[in-house]
């Protein structure tokens, strides 16, 4: 093995050859200058993406609440178009908020959905200094509060109690397309102003009823020389008689003049009898004259002999009269009905209710229709709202005996 001292190694190191750089001076300069002259990034690379992200988040933070707020308002307006704008929007109060079944998540959603349709409830909870920035806004808020105070009660269209002293008085609608049986206290009926309720004058004001409940018959006496012009008005007279006497469950209604003769009713000819109202002859929708805040359940005659399931579908149909609209929202789908003696189960699916009023009106219209189809109780399945107002939706609900009570 070769022995080396430091000098030997120094000599060998000194003999290591010079290794040439193959890149030319010019090429090297070009590469160096291009790198030296590259503009230095003045801002951090994350700055612009970061700012853009923050801007997007800010925009979302502003628009998402507005979007959801608008969605809620649209729901209410949509509802109002279909039924009663003033009454529907008046439903939202803390007192009237329905109680929900806490065991189901769906009912929680339901709670949120109904609350969403309460446009002013949130405002009311806010302290004035946070909610009101100018005197104009303050006035608006006061107006809203006043309006809300007057809208604390839901508008029920049926009379569930057996309270006496009411008599049925039927009025034509404004264009006489439908007859609206109302319940009035006997002492109030003479002072009743149909105009105020969006109704026409009574068609049978000159007639006298003589009812024999034991025989199940009634005689309607017309003044001698009674004349009626127009088939619509004649129809209104006949329907008014039938609905005025409906509560007596009669078998026969006779018509006569004071002289005991048959009654001449225009294009209907001379009539001595009108048919009593038969089971399943009507469904119930909603009547409301334009500009009026009053609403009535309107019996709408249906052709043939529909089943109750068919009747529910017919209740959703529009176009049954100028001031008549369905009491059932479009989003409600009746999946099936099953009957157990006098109980009918109504299975349905639905989306968000615009308001508690909308829900109440729908339920009452269905109850009344079910009663007219011979059922005594209705069990709603799929409502997801357990109880609200006077109805416990978990249990079968008795159908009402009477509709459209008027309490002045």
């Amino acid at each position, binding site marked *: *093995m*070769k022995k*080396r001292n*430091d000098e030997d*190694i*120094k000599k*060998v*190191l*000194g*003999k*290591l*050859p*010079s*290794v*040439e*750089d*193959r*890149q030319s*001076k010019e090429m*090297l*300069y070009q*590469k*160096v*200058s291009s*790198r*030296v002259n590259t503009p230095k990034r003045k801002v951090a690379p994350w700055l612009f993406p970061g700012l853009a992200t923050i801007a997007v988040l800010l925009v979302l933070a502003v628009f998402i609440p507005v979007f959801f707020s608008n969605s809620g308002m649209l729901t209410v307006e949509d509802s109002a178009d279909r039924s009663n704008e003033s009454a529907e929007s008046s439903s939202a109060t803390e007192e009237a908020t329905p109680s929900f079944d806490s065991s189901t998540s769906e009912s929680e959603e339901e709670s949120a959905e109904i609350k969403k349709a309460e446009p002013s409830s949130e405002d009311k909870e806010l302290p004035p200094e946070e909610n009101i920035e100018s005197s104009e806004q303050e006035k608006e808020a006061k107006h809203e509060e006043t309006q809300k105070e007057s809208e604390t009660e839901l508008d029920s269209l049926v009379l569930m109690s057996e309270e006496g002293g009411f008599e049925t008085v039927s009025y034509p609608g404004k264009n006489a397309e439908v007859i609206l049986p109302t319940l009035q206290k006997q002492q109030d009926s003479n002072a009743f102003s149909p105009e105020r309720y969006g109704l026409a004058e009574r068609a049978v004001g000159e007639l006298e009823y003589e009812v024999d409940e034991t025989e199940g018959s009634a005689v309607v006496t017309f003044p001698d020389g009674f004349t009626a012009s127009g088939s619509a008005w004649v129809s209104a007279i006949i329907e008014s008689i039938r609905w005025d006497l409906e509560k007596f469950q009669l078998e026969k209604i006779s018509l006569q003049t004071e002289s005991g003769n048959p009654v001449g009713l225009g294009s209907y000819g001379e009539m001595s009898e009108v048919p009593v109202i038969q089971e399943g002859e009507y469904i119930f929708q909603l009547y409301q004259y334009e500009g009026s805040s009053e609403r009535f359940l309107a019996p709408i005659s249906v052709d043939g002999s529909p089943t109750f399931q068919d009747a529910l579908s017919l209740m959703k149909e529009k176009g049954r009269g100028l001031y008549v609209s369905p009491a059932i929202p479009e989003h409600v789908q009746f999946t099936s009905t099953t009957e157990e003696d006098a109980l009918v189960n109504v299975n349905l699916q639905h989306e968000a209710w615009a308001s508690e009023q909308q829900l109440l009106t729908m339920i009452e219209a269905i109850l009344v229709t079910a009663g007219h189809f011979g059922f005594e109780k209705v069990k709603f399945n799929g409502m997801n709202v357990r109880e609200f107002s006077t109805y416990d939706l978990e249990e079968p609900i008795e159908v009402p005996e009477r509709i459209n009570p008027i309490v002045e």
Partner: protein
Amino acid sequence: MRTFFDELYENYHHDLFQFLIYMVKDRSLAEDLVQDVYVRVMKSYDSFSGKSSEKTWLFSIARHVAIDYFRKQKRKRNRFMEFFDWSERGEEIKDQNKMPEEIAVQNDEIQRVYQALDKCTVDQRSVLVFRFIQGMSIKETAEILSWSESKVKTTQHRAMKALKGILEDMEEGRGDREEA
């Protein structure tokens, strides 16, 4: 800038490239690193205080460029080691850097010394290159390395000793040698 570059290139480029090629033992890599050196020099020219000579300043930058390269390589190697059994397979991996032609035509002793430089530490290699390949004085080397002259002498002594041992091991065919 061009004038300054020309001046540096004419005066120091040859020595600068020699330093880098003997430090990294790879021609194309040395060519890339020499660019880095010039870029750093150009960018920091305004901050050159003149306390040291231009040559000292230039080679000091070159040494740091080389050290930065070795650090990057070490980090890459460490990441690679995490999922590679280096103890079993490492010896199979040979140095892929092609020996420069200028070295390849030299005798065996010169080629062995060239290869043995790889086994020295970066500090030892720096001192050997500056002192015996570049022919710099102890003082110049100390200035470039920002060391005391005594440290340069000590490192030089250890480098010579290590190099001798490496050469002996290479002749005996013992392969790698752990440096002191």
